[in-house]
């Protein structure tokens, strides 16, 4: 009984810590993005609240919480209220399968440093990232506004077609690691991260991840100059905040997934594993921000053509080649 209690307590502590770290990381990524973008454009970015702007996320939170929660008259009320939560929760849940450190020895028991080590972790992640489309689609539909609807339509088309390329680019990884579990995929990269064994898959996954998270150059669903704000045009206050936080949570989660699938997860010399993991996630996030500061938005036909005519065929060929090479290697040994 006591044993059970201790296990439960440890799991609760772990959950709380993961949640806290994830949420504060998302909040500070917003600040980091604004500051880095600012510096790239030779501005300072937010630097007034707190120590050089360090309390800006808090100020934003207070502002969002005290704003009016407005629901348009013709909106589908329940869906409208539900959608932002869906967007944020799916991103949070997806982190559950990401291992962020090797198992920890505590009170004489093994504590795996992953919220839940599913043996179909990748499929779970895919399921959730498909569910995330619902948050956007329902949000846009329920708002009963043309801009929101157009944004949601674009988001659906974009996310569905890039999910295909994303899925195809993961298959080689699964082939190489011979497992669906993220923990084992990370273990398989102890010597060489998959980004080096299979850079094509890494490139495709990275680009699709950009499209999945609706960031520049694929930010058509919220293209400001055509669609006001896209699918969250009608949202205000904390509901908009949830969409916003969901987007940055998604950024962290995708960074974590890219780290685990291609960059060797928490493996790394000298420094403790958790530092390696966080460092890699932040590095991926920085590249995302860097891309946003550099590239302009694609046109919608370019986006679709790039996804269907380049990424998907490339991913298929890559899959074939990887399979062939693995078969050849396996036959040779």
């Amino acid at each position, binding site marked *: 009984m006591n044993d059970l209690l201790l296990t439960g307590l440890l799991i609760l502590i772990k959950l709380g810590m993961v949640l806290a770290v994830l949420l504060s990381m998302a909040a500070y990524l917003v600040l980091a993005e604004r500051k*880095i973008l*600012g*510096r790239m454009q*030779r*501005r300072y970015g937010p630097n007034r609240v707190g120590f050089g702007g360090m309390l800006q996320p808090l100020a934003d939170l207070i502002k969002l919480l005290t704003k009016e929660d407005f629901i348009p008259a013709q909106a589908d009320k329940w869906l409208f209220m539900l959608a932002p939560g869906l967007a944020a929760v799916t991103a949070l849940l997806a982190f559950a399968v990401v291992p962020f450190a090797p198992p920890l020895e505590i009170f004489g028991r093994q504590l795996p440093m992953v919220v839940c080590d599913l043996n179909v972790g990748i499929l779970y992640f895919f399921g959730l990232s498909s569910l995330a489309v619902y948050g956007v689609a329902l949000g846009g539909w329920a708002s009963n506004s043309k801009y929101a609807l157009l944004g949601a339509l674009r988001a659906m088309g974009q996310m569905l077609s890039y999910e295909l390329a994303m899925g195809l680019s993961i298959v080689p990884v699964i082939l190489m690691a011979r497992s669906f579990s993220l923990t084992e995929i990370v273990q398989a990269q102890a010597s060489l991260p998959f980004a080096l064994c299979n850079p094509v898959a890494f490139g495709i996954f990275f680009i699709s991840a950009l499209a999945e998270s609706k960031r520049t150059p694929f930010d058509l669903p919220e293209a400001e100059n055509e669609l006001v704000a896209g699918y969250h045009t009608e949202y205000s206050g904390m509901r908009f905040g949830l969409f916003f936080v969901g987007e940055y949570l998604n950024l962290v989660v995708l960074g974590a997934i890219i780290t685990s699938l291609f960059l060797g997860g928490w493996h790394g010399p000298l420094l403790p594993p958790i530092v390696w993991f966080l460092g890699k996630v932040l590095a991926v996030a920085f590249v995302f921000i*860097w*891309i946003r500061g*550099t590239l302009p938005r694609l046109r919608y036909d370019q986006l679709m053509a790039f996804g269907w005519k380049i990424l998907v065929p490339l991913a298929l060929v890559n899959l074939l080649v990887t399979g062939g090479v693995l078969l050849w290697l396996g036959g040779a040994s």
Partner: protein
Amino acid sequence: MNLWRDIKGTFQPFWVTLRYLFKRPVTISYPEQKRTPPPRYRARMILTRDPEGEERCVACHLCSAACPVDCISMQAAEREDGRRQAAWFRINFARCIYCGLCAEACPTMAIQMSPEYELGNRDPLKLVWEKEDLLVDHGGKDPNYHFYRHSGIGVAAPRGGNDDELPPVNIKTNLP
């Protein structure tokens, strides 16, 4: 060749943004650092005085007629010595667009733009400035200009007393 151009065009910008990341921002952090506007900067107006220290404004209403947003109002009055002056003179800076048309219209150079730009205020009523607030005790951009030395004959100086003025003609002597 086109493909090569496209690839170059996609990756070169990354180097540019990375370089700019480490350059000094060009921002002027306003409340701490203030830039000095050039002397002819068009910010709030002042009402200047002539070299004798008298108010230049003769309450001719030309400025208020020229103002595209109608933010100047005044009441004309006459002093005992015959000089026209504004009994009250009011500019609503909450409406002013700082176009400078009033200063251009003014025949006496009374109203002039000054480079003082810090007018921000939370209470719009505090942006309505009266004559006392607008009056300064210098001549502004042309300190030597004196309206009554060229016009307004016989008010500030006796007839024929100004430099560019001939003594009054005795019309009787012109008779044949």
